[in-house]
């Protein structure tokens, strides 16, 4: 089994690329691959807890929690996140907080990297 690291930059709401990143991560983890997800830019807004899933909008919390339970490592860029007014106490549990070098370290150990660019 391999290691896949996904860099995810787009916002949760407003396009479907974020949704794609999580679904891909789920498929890879289900197949037994090691999966890491790095959130940067607008994607960091998705680590906020207590998201209300309105049917007209994408939601992240339910899927992130499920991925974490499957052993997927998820880390958010601390600077990007606090710049959006989200503190650790407001965030989904078990999501890691770190700086960009976390992503580069995971990339170093990955067989494949998928960079999903943002706005």
């Amino acid at each position: 089994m391999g290691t896949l690291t996904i860099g995810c930059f787009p916002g949760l709401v407003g396009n479907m690329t974020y949704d794609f990143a999580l679904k891909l991560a789920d498929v890879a983890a289900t197949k037994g691959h090691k999966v890491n997800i790095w959130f940067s830019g607008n994607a960091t807004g998705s680590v906020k807890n207590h998201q209300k899933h309105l049917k007209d909008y994408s939601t992240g919390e339910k899927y992130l929690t499920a991925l974490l339970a499957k052993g997927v490592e998820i880390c958010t860029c601390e600077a990007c996140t606090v710049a959006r007014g989200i503190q650790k106490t407001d965030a989904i549990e078990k999501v890691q907080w770190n700086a960009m070098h976390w992503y580069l370290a995971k990339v170093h150990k990955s067989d494949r990297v998928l960079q999903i660019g943002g706005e």
Partner: protein
Amino acid sequence: MGENVKLAFIVQKPQYKGETSRLGITHAISYQTVEILLEDGELVTPTLCFVGEGVLGLQKGQKAMDMYGVTSSETHIKNALLVDLDVFICKEDLAKYGIPEDSLPDAEEMGADKKLQIVPYSEIQKAIEESKHVMFF
């Protein structure tokens, strides 16, 4: 001896229009501190490349802090040089947008040894081919 993983950071969106192009620069710069998360002897060696619209917004003399209260892309480029990143700017794309090569900054006054490298696209292609992973911003 640990593996030295070469990475290509390809910035193809203009500075200031969105956040992604700036994040390409800052992610590349973060190679400076990645060692704390790696094993002894392991390395990450990034090459930062600007192509297409990515060559827009790199000129010297930027006043982003005065106008917007944010660090300029010029400052980020200088920081990249200061931490010894190889920074490639596509020569053909500069010509396409009419950007003079001498309008681009260097970080000599900050003590940087590296300079921006204005290169044909073939050099950027070579850097891409030599990299284990390629990331587009």
